[in-house]
């Protein structure tokens, strides 16, 4: 007989039925044809910007060993479209919506966050501080601890809803940025966005990505993300959402053992449209096999 398992996890006051959610940018309403969205721990739409923006030059994706590089460039229809169309498309599902915010300036982050946080259907914000700050010569907000702290503290003033800071792995010390985000008032940390990467066609000697460089994702990045989750868990008491290279239930569990409370799945959905729910089923199976009744037992349970 199957024992009852509790898969609930809590991220900054937001109780999720399970720890599995899509990674922003790798998920859309179209996937409803293949996937039961009601089974997700949360719904995370693609990052939204204040105004429509066109995205980057093509090609926008290329393959690498064990992964892919993308430089979509946050193609966005702007916040008005997002509130009028995207949110209603997801609102009918039980899973709470966490809106991912991208902005070009600190002021715009605050502005967009305030608008989104006022929407009743948006239960939390994920601040994509890993995208380039145009006022900072293209450097990501999340590469600078002081800016990270300031940005989050300002967004904190406009909402009491959970704020998750999506950190960039492209830093010398992710621990330093994690601590800054916590001090700024974040309720959770996403570890992490994609890794800056590049690939060249040796026949044409041209970059395989139109924007020359892009973000690396897929199973090849998972050990680096697991290391970063472990490192961040050492210095921060905030719940961590692991993101990067999860292809299976065991990958998700590995991140939870390293210190993650929840896990986002991105690239795996490109290969398998039911990856999110398949991973969830594999976690349940693992819990069954290992006689784990509370999934929270796994969080940070690494034995060194």
């Amino acid at each position: 007989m199957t024992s009852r398992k509790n898969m609930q996890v809590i991220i900054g006051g937001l109780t999720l039925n399970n720890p599995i959610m899509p990674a922003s940018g790798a998920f859309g309403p179209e996937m409803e044809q293949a996937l039961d969205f009601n089974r997700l721990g949360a719904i995370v739409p693609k990052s939204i910007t204040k105004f429509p923006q066109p995205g980057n030059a093509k090609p926008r994706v290329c393959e690498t060993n064990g992964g892919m590089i993308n430089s979509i460039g946050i193609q966005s229809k702007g916040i008005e479209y997002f509130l009028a169309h995207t949110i209603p498309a997801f609102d009918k599902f039980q899973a709470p919506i966490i809106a991912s915010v991208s902005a070009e300036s600190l002021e715009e982050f605050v502005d967009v966050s305030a608008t989104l946080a006022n929407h009743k259907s948006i239960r939390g914000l994920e601040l994509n501080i890993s995208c380039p700050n145009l006022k900072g010569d293209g450097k990501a907000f999340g590469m600078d601890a002081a800016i990270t702290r300031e940005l989050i503290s300002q967004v904190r003033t406009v909402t009491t809803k959970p704020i998750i800071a999506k950190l960039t792995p492209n830093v010398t010390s992710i621990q330093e940025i994690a601590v800054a985000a916590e001090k700024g008032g974040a309720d959770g940390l996403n570890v992490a966005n994609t890794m800056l990467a590049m690939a060249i066609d040796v026949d044409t000697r041209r970059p395989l990505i139109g924007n020359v460089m892009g973000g690396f994702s897929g199973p090849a990045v998972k050990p680096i993300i697991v290391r970063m989750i472990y490192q961040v868990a050492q210095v921060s008491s905030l719940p961590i959402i692991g993101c990067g290279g999860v292809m299976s239930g065991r990958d998700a569990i590995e991140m939870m053992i390293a210190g993650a409370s929840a896990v986002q799945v991105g690239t795996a959905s490109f290969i398998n449209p039911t990856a999110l729910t398949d991973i969830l089923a594999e976690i349940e199976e693992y819990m069954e096999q290992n006689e784990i009744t509370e999934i929270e037992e796994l969080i940070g349970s690494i034995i060194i």
Partner: protein
Amino acid sequence: MQRHQANVLSNKQVSNRYWHMVVDISELNIDVDPGQFFQVRCADTYFPFLRRPLSVYRINEDTIEFLYLVKGQGTSAMTKIQAGQSLDMMGPVGEGFSLDPSAGNILLVARGVGVATLAAVAQAACRQQVKCYAIMSARSRDDLLAIEFLEDYGAEVFIVTEEEGTSDVENVKRIIKEDICATTVIDAIYTCGSRRLSKLSQSIANELHIPGEIALEEHMGCGMGACFSCVCDIREGDTTKSVRVCTEGPVFPLHKVVME
């Protein structure tokens, strides 16, 4: 977007660079339209990693066929799939071609692997007793495929190749205007596989006020509309808008596509 495990009935090399695969869909309960595609897993490995979009070449009662160009490591891996193995494919994906049953004659303009997409149109046209004229362009005669299939569907085929010095746009334009349109009323143009021939098709369609459709090819990430990697620009009145080839296409009205 459904994922299927379909039985491969055959997978054979048909020319220097092209392979032909037949897949059993009798158990899948799916309807497939010309111009739609499947996201095919090339191998059960982490490289090649992404699925490949393969348009449907022929649509039969119990089978579908793919004609694919072996271009890189993904399609090379696909050639290793044996009859009897299962093919991991998602689909059918996207918006296909529309074919007005009242049309008398249609023109297909295909280059290279573009024939893999347009052959399904010729097949549908034949079923609706619509006459096809087809311009088939390739590097060489060896690269030409499906000519017999097209002729079996009643198509009148015009072959142009680089090798023979007949594939330049001016000559194709002359064939369309002098050899086809001078004596025949063409009701629609369909094109795939070449930017130059697409531009030509667009200009002829505009000039002769003929509706047309184009199947676009793009680098795809997810093939499900989630990632926005396969975008193109479409004219909407006086403005342009960016659309996803995988879900809003791959087939678009010819006059709307902004040719890069």
